[in-house]
């Protein structure tokens, strides 16, 4: 009797625990089925169109426009802060008016005069003035945060109310594009100053408004900041004072969700939901009802150090060409998924200045053998360092292994050296890595920004020992021609010539272009991927 009683207690305990678990699990069935988003106004939620859920795996340090740098921060800041100009959809070639209803540029592209609309008001109802614009641009520069590089050499002033003049130290036809970036969002200067913001030259140490701007937005955009938890979510609500067309949603929740979970969530999604990290293989087998918008805005490339003191092998120009000829670009691009393409040059196809697809690089093992023979290096072995991460749905180790295999067929032994991302970045910054592989996006959607980085003697080039002295005069001149171009069209042409030379002479081997992707449920309208930096324009997204 005693034994039976004891057993029954144990069984009961287990059964109770299991029952509790199962009961709670089953109860979830009445919910929205993951991540919310579905309209369930019966139990207190919003009606459809009330809440949009945007899932993305994010790291966001700040929602202060002067400090914002990461993609998710740009996504949110773009919705909260108006800029002088902006872009529509995936087209980043033509800026369109926002706070500025029109603008003019002088002949040498050093002075841009913006005429502001009179309609714009901040979320507190106060009008947006030229003073606010000048304050915001100068603060962005003087804060010396990550996005300050985009406005390097620019200065803003206001000769009269309603007019803002932005000057550039060097000819730069891309100033409107730069000022469309979320970091150039216009703050209510009076309120910001009251919270410790300053646009003075010592703003890097004197400005104290970032903490406030992480809790309260001071913009004139269609959404205002409701709450910001750097680990889990950013919540935006519709700005009732918005001066333009009313935004599509009452509330937008940007949730921090791993890519694998995003895939599961979208596969069963109901209501208005968007996922931003389903690239590459993660796009496979999704329900056909989902909308997918993609744009190739990232390139993957190899870098070979040009300083013989770092590596006699990688600094040998013939070895670089041998390696370039050994890569199976088509096969490599296929590893990224359906949306990837073999690279033709450094500029991805999302941006003006990309080389035509039919100029995509080709594998030529015979040429590789010739180049290797010319290099005078026998049985070369090089170590390939890369960040051991999954980027946009693709494990970089897979790509590195393919490079290793391709090079091996040309007689080049590649030893893989995966590194944690922090270690990789540290080594990259130190500029002493003989051979590395990484993805790259543009700082802002202007192809010529790559010249500022990768031309001989520029920051990224120097990290691979590619000084002006080690480059040909022709290569240096091609970069200068891009920077001297006075209008967008001639700059695009100069960019193409620069890339063709890059393919022949540079220590950079561009491999493939991969896409940024927006996946949305069928009820969401306007969910188009933008290579402008904000991924999807939350201002334009609305129920359909």
């Amino acid at each position: 009797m005693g034994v039976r009683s004891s057993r029954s207690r144990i069984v009961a305990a287990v059964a109770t625990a299991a029952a509790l678990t199962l009961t709670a699990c089953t109860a979830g069935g009445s919910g929205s089925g993951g991540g919310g988003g579905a309209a369930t106004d019966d139990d207190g939620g919003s009606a459809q169109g009330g809440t949009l859920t945007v899932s993305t795996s994010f790291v966001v340090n700040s929602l202060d426009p002067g400090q914002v740098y990461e993609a998710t921060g740009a996504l949110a800041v773009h919705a909260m802060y108006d800029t002088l100009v902006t872009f529509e959809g995936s087209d980043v070639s033509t800026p369109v008016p926002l706070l500025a209803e029109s603008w003019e540029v002088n002949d040498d592209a050093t002075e841009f005069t913006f005429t502001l609309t009179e309609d714009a008001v901040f979320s507190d109802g106060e009008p947006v003035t030229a003073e606010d614009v000048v304050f915001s641009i100068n603060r962005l520069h003087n804060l010396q945060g990550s996005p300050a590089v985009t406005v390097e050499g620019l200065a803003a002033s206001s000769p009269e109310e309603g007019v803002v003049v932005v000057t550039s130290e060097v000819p730069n036809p891309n100033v409107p594009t730069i000022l469309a970036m979320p970091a150039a969002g216009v703050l209510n200067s009076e309120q910001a100053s009251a919270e410790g913001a300053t646009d003075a030259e010592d703003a890097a140490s004197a400005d104290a408004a970032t903490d406030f701007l992480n809790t309260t937005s001071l913009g004139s955009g269609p959404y205002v900041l409701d709450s910001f938890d750097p680990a889990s979510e950013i919540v935006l609500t519709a700005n009732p004072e918005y001066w333009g067309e009313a935004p599509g949603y009452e509330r937008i929740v940007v949730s921090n969700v791993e890519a694998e979970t995003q895939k599961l969530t979208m596969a069963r999604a109901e209501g208005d939901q968007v996922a931003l990290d389903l690239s590459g293989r993660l796009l496979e087998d999704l329900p056909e009802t989902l909308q997918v918008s993609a744009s190739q805005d990232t390139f993957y490339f190899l870098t070979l150090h040009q300083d013989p003191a770092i590596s006699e092998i990688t600094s040998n120009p013939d070895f670089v060409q041998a390696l370039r000829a050994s890569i199976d670009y088509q096969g490599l691009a296929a590893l990224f998924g359906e949306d990837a393409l073999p690279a033709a040059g450094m500029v991805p196809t999302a941006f003006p200045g990309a080389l035509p697809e039919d100029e995509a690089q080709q594998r030529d093992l015979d040429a590789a053998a010739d180049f290797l023979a010319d290099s005078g290096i026998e049985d070369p072995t090089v170590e390939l360092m890369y960040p051991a991460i999954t980027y946009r749905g693709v494990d970089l180790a897979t790509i590195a292994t393919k490079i290793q295999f391709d090079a091996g067929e040309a007689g080049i032994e590649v030893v893989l050296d995966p590194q944690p991302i922090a270690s990789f970045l540290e080594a990259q910054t130190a500029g002493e890595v003989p051979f590395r592989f990484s993805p790259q996006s543009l700082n802002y959607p202007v192809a010529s920004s790559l010249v500022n980085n990768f031309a001989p003697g520029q920051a990224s080039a120097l990290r691979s020992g590619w000084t002006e002295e080690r480059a040909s005069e022709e290569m240096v001149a091609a970069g200068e021609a891009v920077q001297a171009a006075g209008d967008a069209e001639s700059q695009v042409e100069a960019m193409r010539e620069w890339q063709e030379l890059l393919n022949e002479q540079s220590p950079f081997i561009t491999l493939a272009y991969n896409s940024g992707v927006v996946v949305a449920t069928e009820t969401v309208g306007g969910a188009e991927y933008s290579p402008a930096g904000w991924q999807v324009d939350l201002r334009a997204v609305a129920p359909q």
Partner: protein
Amino acid sequence: MTTTLTAQPQRSRWRVQGYALAAYLLRRLVITAVLLLGVTLVTFILVQLVPGDSMTATLSEAALADPEIVAAYRQRWGLDEPLYVQYFVYLGNLLGGDLGVSQQTGRSVLQDLLTYVPATMEIALPAMALSLVIGVAVGLYAAVRHGRAGDQVVRAGTLLGLSTPPFWLSLLVLYVFFFVLGVSPSGGRLSTYWVPPDQVTGLVSVDALLAGEPAMAWDAVQHAVLPVLVLTVLTVATLVRFVRSAMLEVLDQDYIRAARAKGLPRRTVLASHVLRAGLVPVITVSGLAFAALLSGTVLVEQIFSWPGVGQYAYRAASALDMPAILGVSLFVAVVYTVVNLVVDLLYGLIDPRIRVA
């Protein structure tokens, strides 16, 4: 008079025991302080030894190439000071209750921990409670059925539980309960259509009830179920194995055999002798399991988008966010210290042979 004579030694004994307990606690407090100091020093040195720093993990490549931006960043975060100065500044602030500002979130680390610890508690507490109930019950059952079919099944299940990677199990339950069966939310603490309640306890389900929103509380409970389930499976496997082993050891003692030989009912033997004696080592492992749950179940929180200490620690480590890493390390050390202290005190309550005095 007689009463006085008998009462006096009793009070003295309590007083002696009280003094002993106080001395014991004081000793533990001093040891804890030294331990925590050691944790800060070791963590600080280890983070310095890791290649890379927060600046390379935070700034863009273009920004890293700009000396002005680099200088501004280093000054903002005190990285331009020598390492020993950075450490002593940190210690000085720590004594004032200031854990520093997270380079990753821009908020005080203390504020971050106060936000994320309750989130972890919300899944750790029910997981621990379930694990204890199931672990003790199943472990005792297996010990009693030693060598028989029931025991074999439990041992196989335990092995399976112990060898299951948390990441994989999380994805599996998500796939089954959310994707296939559609009976559970996919992640997060609350459906996005809810505006979270004001933080009172930090436990969303409780705060929702306090805010008069039972439907929201129920939604929060539903979101907690899968992470709790995974944590329970992972924790219970350890407990069952340990309970079984501890109970087997007790069952093999002479006094148990004597009790049985005396004809005591099996139920009485199990409840009064076996369970009580076997619980002492179980408390240790339970304490450690609970500390592990509280100090961060990184992968589970990642998969379920659960903004707890684990996720915070993961992101702090990824960004080499020194103040946050130090803060989490300190928190973990405090959790383990407190849990160990509680375990030691519980020993005395359960087993009179192990009294402080």
